């Protein structure tokens, strides 16, 4: 018998209860709507709560299940999504005044697939403006970290990270161009998966940088990530970068151990205190790697040539592509963008064609470096983020240049990468471990994450907000 409040159930548990008719989707959805009413004035996760449509969807799910039409593990499960996923008839803003009145006439592919699976949409979640600005946006206040609301969540999928952690939805779609799923996952103590490039359609998702953008799930457990990934993955003719690689059932080998896995440790960059990584973060990550070794994985030191250039290469490409997308609105309505966003996006207009090509050449070389390494190991492990969350008001607009970025190499190579909680620092804030795998080997990444979570059991601790 599970005694957690309904809003703290995992998707996997709730799903089993719904399937066996022990739990009503309406009851479950109401528990989240009540939780949002009670808590979200402190966490500021929701830009818009879709109360009426969520309850309508829940009633429909209940009727279908009662009459024997169970659609699968997400049927009747309340989710909520970053406000850059187009939702038919519902405002989708990118948390920017530029799109304040933008109402798409169709769902993006990922949301359409979730709807078809019977998932319920509780609403639209906060984010950094257009997935790149700082915490301050031109449209609405920013989501706050549920472990301590004085602290930031990281971005850009800020509302997704905070809402899952605070029990304001069971899972969420985030987007990741340089770490925007994995950063908030690490800071908010949840699981966030950036799948392989091409695995999940970006059609109908407001772009930041098309060659680096990835869509993926954010949940409380790796098992729940597997549930959502299975539904949203697969070829989509509307996204020219979509892959035809078959979609496996990500839970098929989730419960196997990790004794067949070799984990690569690139100590020259990810573990180098001289690169700027925080010592307390590093200590927790190293302990997690030892735990994985004790669980049966083989640990091997690896070297990834040129990795130190990945950060600037990512910045040049990301900002140049973002500048190109936003140029028409930058010309006509610059006053509707937030300053944090403008400080960055204008640089994209200053980088030269030579800069962009040089960055793409570096990207190619880094991909080759990883390709060589991934022939020898199954996973790369390291810290997700170099530092623990900072307080609101301490945000540094130059942080992208000052802090080493451990997530963007995997945007450049397109490899799948996950962040899972591996402990708490002295302030009681979560720290993330990042595991990256071979392209389209999300199953391996999820298996290692699941195995570690089952051992560490950090998922048993929820924020007290």
């Amino acid at each position, binding site marked *: 018998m599970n005694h957690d409040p309904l809003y703290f159930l995992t998707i996997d548990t709730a799903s089993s209860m719904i399937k066996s008719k022990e739990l009503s989707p309406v009851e479950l959805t109401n528990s989240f709507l009540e939780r949002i009413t009670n808590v979200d004035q402190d966490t500021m996760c929701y830009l818009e709560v879709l109360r009426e449509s969520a309850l309508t969807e829940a009633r429909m799910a209940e009727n279908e299940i009662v009459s024997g039409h169970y659609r699968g593990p997400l049927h009747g499960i309340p989710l909520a999504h970053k406000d850059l996923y187009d939702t038919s008839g519902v405002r989708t803003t990118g948390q920017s005044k530029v799109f304040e009145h933008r109402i798409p006439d169709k769902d993006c592919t990922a949301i359409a697939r979730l709807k078809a699976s019977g998932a319920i949409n509780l609403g639209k979640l906060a984010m950094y403006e257009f997935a790149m600005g700082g915490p301050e946006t031109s449209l609405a206040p920013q989501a706050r970290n549920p472990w301590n609301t004085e602290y930031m969540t990281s971005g850009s999928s800020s509302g997704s990270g905070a809402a899952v952690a605070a029990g304001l939805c069971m899972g969420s779609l985030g987007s990741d161009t340089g770490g925007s799923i994995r950063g908030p996952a690490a800071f908010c103590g949840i699981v966030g998966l950036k799948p392989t490039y091409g695995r999940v359609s970006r059609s109908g998702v407001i772009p930041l940088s098309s060659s680096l953008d990835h869509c993926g799930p954010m949940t409380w457990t790796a098992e729940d990530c597997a549930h959502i990934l299975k539904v949203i993955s697969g070829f989509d003719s509307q996204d020219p970068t979509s892959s035809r690689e078959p979609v496996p059932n990500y839970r098929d080998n989730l419960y196997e151990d990790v004794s067949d896995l070799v984990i690569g440790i690139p100590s020259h960059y990810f573990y180098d205190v001289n690169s700027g990584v925080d010592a307390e973060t590093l200590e927790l990550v190293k302990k997690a790697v030892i735990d994985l070794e004790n669980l049966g994985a083989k640990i091997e030191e690896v070297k990834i040539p040129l990795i130190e250039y990945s950060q600037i290469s990512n910045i040049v490409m990301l900002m140049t592509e973002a500048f190109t997308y936003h140029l028409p609105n930058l010309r006509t309505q610059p006053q509707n963008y937030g300053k944090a966003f403008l400080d960055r996006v204008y640089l994209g207009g200053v980088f*030269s064609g030579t800069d962009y090509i*040089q960055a793409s050449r570096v990207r190619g*070389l880094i991909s080759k470096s990883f390709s060589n390494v991934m022939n020898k190991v199954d996973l790369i492990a390291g810290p997700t983020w170099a530092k623990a969350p900072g307080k609101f008001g301490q945000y540094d607009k130059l942080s992208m240049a000052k802090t080493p970025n451990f997530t963007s190499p995997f945007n450049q190579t397109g490899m799948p990468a996950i962040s899972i909680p591996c402990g708490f620092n002295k302030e009681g804030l979560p720290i993330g471990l990042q595991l990256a795998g071979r392209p389209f080997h999300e199953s391996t990444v999820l298996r290692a994450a699941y195995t570690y979570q089952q051992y560490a059991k950090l998922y048993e601790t929820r924020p007290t907000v």
Partner: protein
Amino acid sequence: MDSIEASTIHHALTKVGINLTSDRIDELKEIYIQYLSELEAMHNLDLDATEVSGVFKLDPIGELE
């Protein structure tokens, strides 16, 4: 590349129809300079032209598999 002139930023942006005040250009210049040392290092990389064509592949995954 060891510095950048405000006029370079002004020119790059006006060329595409964005006109900013000189104060704002100076502010952007300070931000840009923070990235310069890294950019410089990237440009000075000894890239092998026979290995790297410079033609960006949209999907680098194929190279990895």
